[in-house]
């Protein structure tokens, strides 16, 4: 019983915490973000397994995590609204060469982030060349040029 409760509690806690940290936190990982993720994984491991390092416990924890994950994906398929609440939806932040600054402020995105994504993906030099920049559900910024 323990294994299921532990895994369930950690899954929900991580989901809420990563939702709070916003999409961008995971979308474009810097090397520091990567190290931070490793540390979070390390901190989580003990809480997931407790004092029981048996193979059975490890398998039970993994099975529980996968079950919850698949359950959520089925729930998201059934209800678009729940899916949007869990994963968010795409958000336009540049429209016809104009930064949508109120949206950028709310989404904690800087001009530099958008221009970096534009240069990396499309070789774009300035914002006038961008028709749309969109923060996707996975946190990446996609660019559509004019």
């Amino acid at each position, binding site marked *: 019983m323990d294994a299921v409760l532990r895994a369930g509690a950690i899954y929900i806690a991580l989901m*809420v915490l990563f939702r709070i940290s916003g999409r961008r936190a995971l979308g474009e990982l810097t090397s520091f973000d990567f190290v931070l993720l490793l540390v979070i994984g390390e901190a989580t491991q003990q809480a997931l397994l407790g004092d029981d390092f048996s193979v059975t416990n490890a398998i039970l924890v993994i099975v529980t995590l996968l079950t919850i994950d698949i359950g959520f994906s089925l729930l998201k398929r059934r209800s678009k609204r729940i899916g*949007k609440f869990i994963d968010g*939806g795409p958000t336009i932040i540049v429209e016809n060469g104009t930064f949508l600054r109120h949206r950028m402020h*709310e989404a904690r995105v800087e001009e530099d982030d958008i221009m970096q994504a534009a240069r990396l993906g499309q070789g774009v030099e300035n914002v006038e060349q961008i028709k749309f920049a969109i923060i996707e559900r996975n946190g990446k910024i996609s660019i559509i040029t004019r």
Partner: protein
Amino acid sequence: MLTHDQEMQDRRHPVDEDIALQRRIWRFERVGWYFLVVVVLLTLCGLFSHGLLSSTTVTSAQNDLTVKYERFHRSGGINAMIIHSRGAPGRSHTIILGNTMMVGFSIDSMQPQPVSSAGTDHGLRLTLTGDDHGDSTLYLAWRSDGLGMFQSGISVEGGGQVSINQFIYP
């Protein structure tokens, strides 16, 4: 530059937006950030063990028993407790650790070892050797096994007693 209201209207192309929901998510992120800050501050204050809110000292009315302990514990964690007790000078005396405490916690280490110990209906009886003034100090490390609130007590046989309220987080 577009006004706030113009910006916050749903776009249908190239993606179908739901800005009202997105704004709720952004608000959730902002409130969540404040919540995280509060959690960190409360942790520093000792709400989750070790700190102003958690570390405490209680003394019996007779002044023959003083216990330093943590109010808040985390399941599986180890916390120290220091028990100062006083009996008759040059003689041993007995303290009793309440039953509830023995259910919620297990003793990880005990220094010095008592002269004798016995489990009773009331809890764990430990007989300690006092110094020339009859004072003794017992250092205990408790491992938290239970979950939730534990109201217990420690007493000196034939002397004073203190009540101990502890909470164990999952």
